[in-house]
């Protein structure tokens, strides 16, 4: 719980006196990296944040996109890494709770959750297994209870997350545009704290998250209560319909200190509050503790005397507590009192805006030491390699995870988890496709290209359902930003994401930066995560069952881009090589043609080609449809590649299209006209996946056997070790 020396001096200079203890605590919480973005704020401005569909309002904690017909979609992403690494069940659960309240605070109903989970090597590391198992349970427990479907996400294991956990949660909301809360406040309005009582849990949580993880500070972990959150959601939406809310913000990192100062600053008001009026969970809490407690399931609402009665009636119906804790002033001060005694009186602008830092950066030494040429042992048995990869935790089917999440509740889930992107139906007849993607292996060897790759991959997945990307959220997770090399990787990733977003005109509508993701063992690999939202105006592409006689067409070039591939790292333990690069022009062309093919109803299904390369993408198609396929690798558009490169390179912008015979010529014509890299590379049928090159068999896999391994291996590892 501290401020840096120069920050203390800055604070004293600004207020012209020594801060009181309460003031010091408030500022320390709010100026933590977690709350203030002091290292990143300067740079985040480079991201394009506006667009024709983007609605921005004062004080919104989530992005708002207009989806037409008077409806909006809201989206936000957050992580709960430090708490989850200490107490995975509670940490992950409260991670869900926090982001849901961000969606709620705009006045929209949360309709979906996606989660990105990353842990150490669960095959060898039993602690990683324990963290994984309990984080999944925590998310399931919270999301299921709320009745918000967890419709997708990703799971990855890498040694760099040993003794640590990345738990990223994205949430989607939906509502009517005219019911969005337009945050405003007038002098004399009332400040209300609604929801669970304030306790001693989560004290100093944001500072805990703004340092490397060295101790298990359990008191900094919040306690989840999904039942109260569910009641809050219903109460708030009812209050919204009754127009009882002038402004609203959820309490997250930094607790009351953050919510009060940021609300006041964004609305240009002052807030005077009395800690005696705050309902607490336990007796004898010090005012400082109350101000920085991060107890969950609380919302700050600004209302007025007239509306308060209605608000109280609604809260009474749901049996949730609602306390008037203060009033709106015109003085731009955050004034904290206990009875008649003043504990803190600070300019809100000062509290809400930490002095920003301009951190130095330099190219990491490790990058120069990474080998470029990857090993290519002769006479490899590709049948065994594919089988081994299919059963590896990163590629194995994740049904053990999403089968614990209620992904159906809300009856919107048209395309369920386990395929490319998940698709929800919206009330205006349109569909929303969502996907989150990260790739720390590629981001490690090239933070810029790796981040661009994550972005393109998320777009590809959304495109595979027939959706056009309309917005993105990013979550940038790195180690200690004070390390110049780590800060360089952050800047590189950010620049890559910015370039792609600008070129593709996909606005960034929200995001989060999380630093200090490290343990005494060292920092995590750079892990930017990108979430992309796409809209389908008419019908999504529902993957139809593949039949014998269907053809497999590939769009996009396969290159010698083995760097950061699952094959090199999992099979050969090799870190290095060429990181896949996205050619923006070709990427756009391929996306557009895939959308056109889907619109013209020429494809039975479209599958993205990514982790594990072509070999894995084709195997997934075959396993999902329980059918074999004969593939001619010599047909795969490429330049002089070795067999393993053809099979496992993770080049971007590639799509696999399943085509019926009757549509084959139409697709061929379309693709030839546009002069795109493509070819017919396979025929479906039989019970085996046969990879051939120049008529010589390279790999020969039995689909049912492969499927059994794919479906069961993750559970096998988690449950039986």
């Amino acid at each position: 719980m501290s401020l840096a020396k120069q920050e203390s001096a800055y604070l004293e200079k600004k207020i012209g006196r020594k801060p009181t203890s309460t003031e010091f605590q408030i500022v320390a919480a709010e100026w933590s990296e977690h709350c203030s973005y002091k290292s990143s704020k300067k740079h985040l401005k480079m991201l394009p944040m506006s667009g024709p569909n983007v609605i921005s309002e004062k004080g919104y904690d989530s992005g708002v996109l207009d989806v037409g017909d008077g409806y909006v979609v809201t989206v936000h992403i957050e992580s709960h890494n430090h708490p989850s690494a200490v107490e995975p069940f509670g940490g992950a659960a409260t991670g869900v709770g926090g982001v849901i309240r961000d969606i709620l605070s705009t006045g929209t109903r949360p309709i979906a959750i996606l989660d990105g989970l990353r842990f150490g090597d669960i095959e060898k590391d039993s602690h990683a297994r324990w963290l994984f198992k309990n984080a999944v349970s925590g998310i399931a427990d919270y999301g299921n209870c709320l009745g918000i479907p967890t419709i997708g996400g990703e799971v990855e294991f890498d040694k760099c997350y040993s003794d640590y956990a990345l738990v990223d949660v994205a949430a989607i909301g939906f509502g009517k545009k005219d019911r969005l809360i337009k945050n405003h406040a007038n002098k004399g309005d009332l400040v209300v704290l609604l929801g669970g009582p304030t306790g001693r849990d989560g004290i100093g949580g944001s500072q805990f998250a703004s340092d490397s993880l060295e101790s298990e500070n359990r008191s900094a972990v919040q306690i989840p209560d999904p039942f109260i959150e569910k009641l809050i959601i219903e109460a708030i939406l009812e209050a919204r319909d009754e127009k009882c809310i002038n402004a609203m913000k959820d309490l997250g990192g930094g607790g009351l200190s953050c919510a009060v100062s940021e609300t006041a600053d964004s609305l240009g008001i002052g807030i005077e509050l009395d800690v005696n009026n705050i309902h607490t969970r336990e007796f004898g809490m010090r005012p400082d503790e109350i101000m920085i407690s991060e107890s969950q399931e609380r919302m700050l609402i600004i209302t007025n005397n007239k509306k308060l009665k209605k608000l109280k009636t609604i809260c009474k119906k749901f049996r949730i507590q609602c306390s008037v804790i203060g009033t709106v002033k015109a003085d731009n001060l955050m004034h904290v009192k206990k009875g008649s005694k003043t504990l803190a009186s600070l300019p809100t602008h000062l509290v809400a805006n930490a002095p920003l830092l301009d951190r130095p950066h330099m190219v990491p030494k490790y990058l120069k030491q990474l080998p470029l040429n990857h090993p290519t042992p002769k006479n490899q048995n590709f049948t065994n390699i594919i089988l081994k990869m299919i059963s590896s935790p990163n590629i194995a089917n994740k049904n053990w995870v999403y089968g614990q999440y209620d992904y159906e509740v809300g009856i919107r889930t048209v395309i369920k988890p386990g395929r490319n992107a998940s698709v929800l139906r919206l009330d205006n007849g349109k569909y929303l496709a969502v996907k989150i993607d990260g790739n720390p292996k590629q981001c490690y060897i090239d933070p810029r290209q790796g981040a661009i790759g994550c972005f393109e991959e998320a777009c590809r997945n959304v495109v595979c359902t027939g959706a056009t990307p309309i917005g993105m959220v990013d979550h940038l997770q790195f180690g200690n930003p004070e390390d110049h090399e780590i800060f360089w990787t952050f800047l590189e990733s950010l620049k890559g994401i910015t370039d792609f977003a600008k070129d593709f005109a996909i606005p960034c509508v929200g995001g989060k930066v999380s630093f200090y993701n490290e343990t005494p063992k060292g920092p995590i690999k750079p892990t930017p995560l990108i979430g992309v939202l796409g809209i389908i105006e008419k019908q999504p592409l529902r993957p139809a069952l593949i039949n014998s006689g269907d053809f497999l067409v590939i769009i996009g070039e396969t290159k010698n881009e083995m760097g950061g591939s699952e094959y090199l790292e999992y099979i050969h333990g090799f870190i290095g090589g060429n990181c896949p690069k996205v050619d923006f022009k070709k990427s756009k062309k391929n996306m557009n043609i895939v959308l056109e093919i889907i619109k013209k109803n020429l494809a039975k299904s479209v599958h993205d080609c990514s982790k594990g390369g072509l070999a894995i993408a084709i195997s997934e198609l075959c396993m999902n449809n329980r059918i074999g396929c004969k593939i001619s690798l010599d047909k795969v558009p490429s330049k002089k590649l070795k067999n393993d490169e053809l099979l496992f390179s993770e080049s971007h912008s590639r799509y696999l299209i399943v085509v019926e015979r009757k549509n084959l010529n139409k697709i061929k014509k379309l693709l030839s006209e546009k002069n795109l890299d493509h070819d017919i590379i396979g025929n479906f049928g039989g019970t085996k996946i046969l990879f051939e090159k120049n008529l010589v068999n390279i790999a020969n896999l039995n689909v049912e056997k492969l499927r059994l391994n794919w479906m069961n291996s993750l559970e096998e590892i988690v449950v039986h070790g």
Partner: protein
Amino acid sequence: MLGIQIKMVSCHLILITRLPTICVKVGVIVFPGSNCDRDMYHVLRDVFKINTEYFWHEKKLSKNLDAVILPGGFSYGDRLRAGVIAAHSPVISDVKKFASKGIPILGVCNGFQILVESGLLPGVLMKNDSLNFMCEWTNLIVENNKTPFTNKLKLRQKIPIPIANGEGRYYADEKTIKLLKKNNQIVFRYSEIVNGSTFRIAGICNKDGNVVGMMPHPERATEPEINPIDSKPSSLIFESLLNVIGVAH
């Protein structure tokens, strides 16, 4: 689609103008923590055009209801045991009165748990044998097609339907199971072992057959758009109700 507002019209008006809303009334009870209430409401009202009304658990049920549905969710956060606190809600005494009058009552998922905990149905629902929450598509087999919710289904008909629960394993002692069999109270069974339920039971009814409880979610399976397999069999559950409460769909 979800949330599309159909204007409330009186039954009288419907007769004159032949609007699609049907002149029967179904109540959907909402407990604190219910979370399938809105889904059930949508299916009843927008898919089957039934006049449907929510009832907060502290509210009295209208006397003119033709059927009552207890939807799924996590009433009271599943504390103590799923459904046990809600079983003591004020509305349950009304539900009991309705049950004794022979009015059709359906409990789905948490609704089934509440019916069991309130003593309207025998047995208990315990943690799944995987000890995990389970969300997956499964198949039901119709064992009793004489109830208000199954009369349009064929005996042994298969229903593709999703389950989503943590405490969905039906258990009753041997004596009770014997009685259930004897009285034809087993309404649905899973086609294969799903969660360790005794005798693969997925849904039962009371002796009179008017109170039915089931763990799977028919409201998630009646629309082709969200049912990847076949939505017709689940639709028949709601059409059966319409068949009984007086109006053919």
